[in-house]
């Protein structure tokens, strides 16, 4: 690695030195209380996969260039220079982390390890060694925002097909307008994903509830955030923000996708509309009596996996549980659950990478948890989690069914 490059990388670190970052970089005592709290470590017990192990990879480099001790006496704090080996370590640390923040609640100081790893991610991007898949997906998403008008017709056409399916499912006479697009003044802008299921099931629920809604042109997921590129993250998020403002909606409802919910809800600052998860909306419709579900329609034992971004990082714990407890007769909790729930291993964009064997291993904690409940159906409310739960299911040859909460509700509407 030449000096020019190193200088450019050091300059990148500077861009991430916000107030919380400085706290997190300085205050770790390496007490080790976090040591075994990462699901990856549970499956692959190596120091590199412990939260402190990951954080130290970043911290050592920071010390080398930003702390007097690292400059004068590097061995004092094990300060390390940026070189190709360090970049490899950063890659392994950052893109084996799902950003679940389970370590954060096991840290006496509350150090946010994924936040620290955002330094690793900007360095990898600058170095040109960030995962290609995520770079490609983020670039595609940004481009879609730039030239959406070119794609509208093709999209509109397939949405018409989906309307027919919705009509069939809810027994409507005409499919027209069952999935509104660009409806000005609608109450809700719903942001789905690329897959048909992520639009059809919510559409059934919205129609049953008689909601005033419209479907977004964009997918909710933010690959810029997974990649760790703050600028792309903002541009991808802005697509929906601008769309919502232009349509004048009161509420933006996000499909089952944890990151897509957390970003507008908590990370963008104040927005002129309310941000809700589809799970919260279903819960609200049930409470208001706008939709009804077949009580205890599911007889088999069922358990719920808290998506980290929806639970620990957004606080939507009780809504999914109340919904599920009314649908199913035998609801079982995983242990631990809620804030302490184990991450399934699918977050952080990891499911987009070529790493299935790694994800099977890092899904070991989740596998053990599911087995302990004895449940036959595992429900979650995040596309990444569902994806990863399917990987765990096939990886460990499990006799379970993995289901999305929205899908389960849509199938059991009274």
């Amino acid at each position, binding site marked *: 690695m030449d000096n020019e490059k190193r200088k450019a990388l050091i300059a990148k670190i500077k861009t991430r030195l916000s107030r*919380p970052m400085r706290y997190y970089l300085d205050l770790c005592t390496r007490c080790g209380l976090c040591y075994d709290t990462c699901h990856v470590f549970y499956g692959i017990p190596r120091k590199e996969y412990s939260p402190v192990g990951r954080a130290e990879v970043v911290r050592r480099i920071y010390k080398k260039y930003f702390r007097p001790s690292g400059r004068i006496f590097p061995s*004092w704090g094990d300060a390390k220079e940026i070189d190709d080996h360090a970049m490899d370590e950063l890659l392994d640390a950052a893109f084996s982390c799902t950003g679940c923040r389970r370590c954060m609640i096991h840290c006496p100081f509350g150090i946010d390890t994924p936040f620290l790893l955002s330094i690793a991610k900007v360095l990898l991007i600058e170095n040109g060694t960030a995962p290609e898949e995520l770079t490609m997906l983020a670039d595609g998403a940004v481009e879609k925002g730039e030239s959406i008008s070119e794609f509208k017709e093709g999209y509109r056409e397939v949405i018409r097909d989906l309307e027919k399916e919705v009509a069939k499912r809810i027994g409507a006479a005409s499919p027209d307008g069952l999935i509104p697009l660009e409806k000005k003044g609608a109450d809700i802008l719903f942001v789905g994903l690329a897959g048909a299921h992520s639009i059809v099931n919510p559409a059934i629920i919205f129609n049953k509830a008689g909601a005033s809604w419209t479907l977004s042109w964009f997918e909710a997921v933010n690959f810029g955030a997974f990649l760790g590129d703050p600028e792309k993250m903002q541009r991808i998020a802005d697509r929906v923000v601008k769309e919502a403002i232009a349509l004048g909606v009161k509420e933006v409802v996000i499909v089952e996708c944890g990151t897509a919910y957390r970003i507008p809800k908590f990370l963008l600052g104040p927005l002129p509309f309310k941000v809700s998860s589809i799970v919260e909306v279903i819960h609200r419709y049930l409470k208001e009596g706008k939709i009804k579900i077949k009580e205890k329609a599911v007889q088999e034992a069922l358990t719920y996996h808290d998506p980290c971004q929806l639970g620990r990082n957004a606080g939507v714990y009780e809504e999914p549980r109340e919904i599920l407890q009314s649908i199913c007769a035998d609801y079982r909790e995983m242990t631990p659950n809620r804030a302490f729930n184990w991450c399934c291993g699918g977050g952080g964009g990891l499911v987009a990478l070529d790493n299935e064997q790694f994800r099977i291993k890092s899904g070991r904690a989740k596998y053990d948890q599911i087995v302990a409940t004895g449940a036959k159906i595992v429900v979650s409310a995040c596309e990444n989690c569902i994806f990863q739960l399917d990987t765990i299911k096939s990886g460990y040859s499990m006799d379970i069914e993995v289901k999305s909460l929205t899908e389960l509700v849509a199938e059991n509407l009274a």
Partner: protein
Amino acid sequence: MWDKVYYFIMIPMVYLAVATFVLGLLVKFIIVLSSPKPAGTYAVFPKRPLRFIGAVGEAFIVPVAFRKDKLFWLMIIAFHGAFLLLFLGHLELIREFIFLQIIPHKVFLGAGFVGIVLIVSVLYFLFRRFTSPWREISVPEDYLLLLLLFLTFIFGSHMSLASRYGIAGFDIPLDAYREYLSSLFTRNPAISQGIIASPHYVLVVLHVFFANLFLMLFPFSKMVHSVFIFAAQLIKRK
């Protein structure tokens, strides 16, 4: 020659240490406060009520450690509690802090117990780091700081125990320390005769030397956790 070294440690180095401590922390605060605040909130859920009290409470009670490792928790609480008492005790050695003597009492309420607790807990932290997996995540700083604390405590504790219980012919009375610290505080520094004249002077010098090092390293080491913990806990609750 040694007289000069002792003098340097006992007076100029103390001022240097305090200045390094204060300026170091000040610079650190300026750097932190001039760093941008990210938009949005980075809380974890469920959010507990009483943000400030909660943050302070968690910093002092360390429930995370209690859940995970009871012995470690006990040592953390013992160490930090004793450290706080130790700090107060040293303030009491400065006559000017008379508010601490509103209810008159003998200085060093712990009667030597505080020092013992600190030594035991520091040794526990140190030996814990000799075992896996803590050994693998430790860096030299972790051992060296504990060693430094151990050395400071062992000499300090010896001075305190010996003078209180009159052990080993230790002949420096508590008032000699009060005189010395007060003189430093009032910027009219002098090492009291009671200390200089004693054959145990060297022990006092060593204690002060290690304490100086501790103060000088404080802003530049992981010891800033004692300050930043509150800020980090507040972010978790924002």
